């Protein structure tokens, strides 16, 4: 412990003393360039983990949830616009994205220790995993839905009678948010006993 303190003290000394051999220009410019490289590298790596290709590189995602997504309107539809995994499961805004990515370290843990590495394990945990996503979307007012589905631009006259009734009342006055009714639109649902409205 003492040795560690001594080492840290040495480094602190180096940081505190003025540089002897390097010019101020080198240090500032060098720092700037290194900053670009590190920051750019960080963001590139971050974006790499934010692709569907990355998500389905693990069999847990590819064989369970991704298969189910393929039947739904968020994967295939008449206009060919589709949502990929991170569109719904990772916030698009930077601050929230970083927060979610830090949370995702738990998912790395799960991957390493095989928390859902078989179909049975996945099905057993499915309700809990689903509840995490419901809670997240409920707490942030379905922000990831609203990246594409903007309430301001919904044309109630083009919606079905049931849809426009619900959207113009419960959704409009903030009583409900998307996930309250639209559970299981992209994946199969777990045992829904006890879930409100089911």
């Amino acid at each position, binding site marked *: 412990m003492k040795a560690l303190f001594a080492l840290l003290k040495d480094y602190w000394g180096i940081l505190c003393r003025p540089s002897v051999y390097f010019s101020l220009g080198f240090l500032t410019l060098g720092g700037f360039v290194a900053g670009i490289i590190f920051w750019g590298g960080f963001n590139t790596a971050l974006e790499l983990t934010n692709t569907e290709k990355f998500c389905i590189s693990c069999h847990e995602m590819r064989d369970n949830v991704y298969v189910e997504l393929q*039947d*739904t*309107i968020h994967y295939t539809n008449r206009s060919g616009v589709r949502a990929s995994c991170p569109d719904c499961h990772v916030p698009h805004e930077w601050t929230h994205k970083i927060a979610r990515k830090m949370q995702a370290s738990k998912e790395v843990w799960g991957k390493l220790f095989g928390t859902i590495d078989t179909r049975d394990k996945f099905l057993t945990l499915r309700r809990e995993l689903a509840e995490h996503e419901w809670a997240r979307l409920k707490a942030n007012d379905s922000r990831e839905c609203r990246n594409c589905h903007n309430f301001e631009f919904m044309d109630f006259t083009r919606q*079905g*009678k*049931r849809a426009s*009734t*619900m959207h113009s009342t419960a959704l409009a006055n903030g009583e409900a948010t998307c996930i309250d*009714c639209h559970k*299981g*639109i992209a994946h*199969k*649902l*777990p*045992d*829904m006993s006890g*879930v409100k*409205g*089911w």
Partner: protein
Amino acid sequence: MTFRILPLVLLAAMGMVLAAEVNYPLDAPGPDGRRPGGTLTRSMPAPPIANDENKDLKRERNYPDQPPTIPHSIRGYQIDKNGNKCLTCHSRANSARTQATMISITHYMDRDGQALAAVSPRRYFCTQCHVPQKEVLPLVGNTFETIDKILQDDANAAQKP
């Protein structure tokens, strides 16, 4: 020994005779109006898949105990042991909030007519009886008349003489 294969020989001979005496076209027209213009051996292009009728208007039932057809699209509705999407609107508890038709009281009874708290398992799988309709004309015509029409016709006929 020879008698044993006799039926086979006779059958083969009969088959040959029948095959030789075909006096109708083997490539007969297709059975009904499903693929107009086609014959039995020809594959016609499939008609485009029609949309679900999605007007939310209740349709008339042809007879009183007909399971009502579903007047809206049910794409992606999950009905399995985990959950039943239909019941999120049509169950007793939810129908007031959603103003959807409550499922019939018979769906809350077991087969002995005893009322249950929740939907009876034998009535749980909605699409076994209730189906959505497509925006298409009937493939085959029919002359079905409802009982009301028959009774009306009967009453009208009795008045005349």
